[in-house]
């Protein structure tokens, strides 16, 4: 396992595919199949963040040499308490799109350095637990109000740009790292309030742009081998 990662890193540093061309065998297999896995950040967060519940599973299917059809789905519930208000957002999300592998593998190695795009959709609800009217003066010591106002049937649509790597650490088992940029395109807001968190997208900031990252572990179910002949 250490050896494989080392070779992968060395191959990255050398940066090419042809450096050792003399020793290339006549043919090698390209593995095609369905890779399934999950996000380690989201899962681990259930243990260290009491205000968070959630998971994300993902799958990708190799379409040809460079292209993979990819999707993620999951559930997230996030509680957040700020100076002026506290709320919980809860719901499911789905992302579908494609990844393009830009990494030229050595022979039978199967690593990815990819750029991908996704369409993201969340279906969620949001509960306003408490809020304070911003009075500035504070003369009357207005109390927090606790409406427990739940808004159902909320949704959001966004586009995502993904940069990531997936490294095969033992046969068919991959560790991955990815960063994502999100751009919100449409949403259904709660009445008299605002979507402040979207499952699968993350926290809402003042603009319509978001970012995030993930560590993934995934398993490749091989389906067919394509023998590549070296000339």
């Amino acid at each position, binding site marked *: 396992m250490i050896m494989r990662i080392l070779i992968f890193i060395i191959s*990255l540093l050398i*940066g090419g595919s042809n450096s050792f061309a003399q020793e290339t065998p006549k043919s090698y297999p390209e593995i095609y199949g369905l890779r399934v896995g999950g996000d380690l950040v989201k899962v681990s967060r259930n243990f260290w963040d009491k205000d968070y519940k959630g998971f994300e599973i993902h799958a990708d299917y190799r379409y040809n040499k460079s292209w993979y059809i990819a999707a993620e789905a999951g559930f997230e519930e996030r509680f957040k308490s*700020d*100076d*002026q*208000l506290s709320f919980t957002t809860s719901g499911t999300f789905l992302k579908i799109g494609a990844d393009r592998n830009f990494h030229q593998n050595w022979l039978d190695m199967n690593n990815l*350095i990819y750029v991908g795009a996704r369409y993201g959709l969340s279906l969620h609800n949001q509960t306003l637990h408490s*809020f*304070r*009217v*911003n*009075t*500035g*003066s504070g*003369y*009357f010591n*207005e109390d927090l109000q606790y409406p427990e106002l739940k808004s159902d049937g909320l949704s959001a649509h966004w586009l995502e740009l993904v*940069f990531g790597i997936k490294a095969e650490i033992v046969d068919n088992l991959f560790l991955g*790292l990815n*960063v994502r*940029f999100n751009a919100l395109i449409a949403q259904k807001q709660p009445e*008299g*309030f*605002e979507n*402040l968190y979207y499952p699968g997208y993350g*926290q*809402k*900031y*003042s603009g319509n742009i978001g*970012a*995030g*990252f993930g560590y993934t572990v995934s398993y490749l179910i091989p389906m067919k081998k394509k023998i590549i002949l070296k000339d």
Partner: protein
Amino acid sequence: MKKFWFLACMVIGISACEKDDICEGGTSETPNVVINLYDGFDTEQLKVATKIAMIAQGFSDTIFYKNTNKIEVPLQINTNETQWSLLLYVPPTVSGNDTIIKQNDVRFNYETHEFYVSKACGYKVDFYNFNANLISNDSTGNSWIHNISNLTREITSDDHAHINLYY
């Protein structure tokens, strides 16, 4: 490749901060009633008060204003009426005299409208059907306000005066 890693580190660094938005105040806060102080005899002329104290009925804290021709009065957001006692400190004209304190009560009636502004600012209240009335206290002979005039029925910001007060 180096650029990719640089970008990746940048993004992780930025997203780890989780910097929240900051409320900038101003029109995103619940407004106060802005009162301009005018000379009761020369009604075109703003008049500076040496010292004014304000206490809301049912409350004990006092707000002081010194050397100003403009005061701001907060309203209660969970009722439709707030009454304020406005106390004017009249400094001694001849040395040896005591400072005289004069008092008038002003009642504000209004309807509240509460709405969401933003995550950082939270909620705000605007006031509609606003009306201020000077409560007569002629019997005590302690009155300092000649008259007040309402300039608006809606209070949505602190930017300009809502009441002219003549004294």
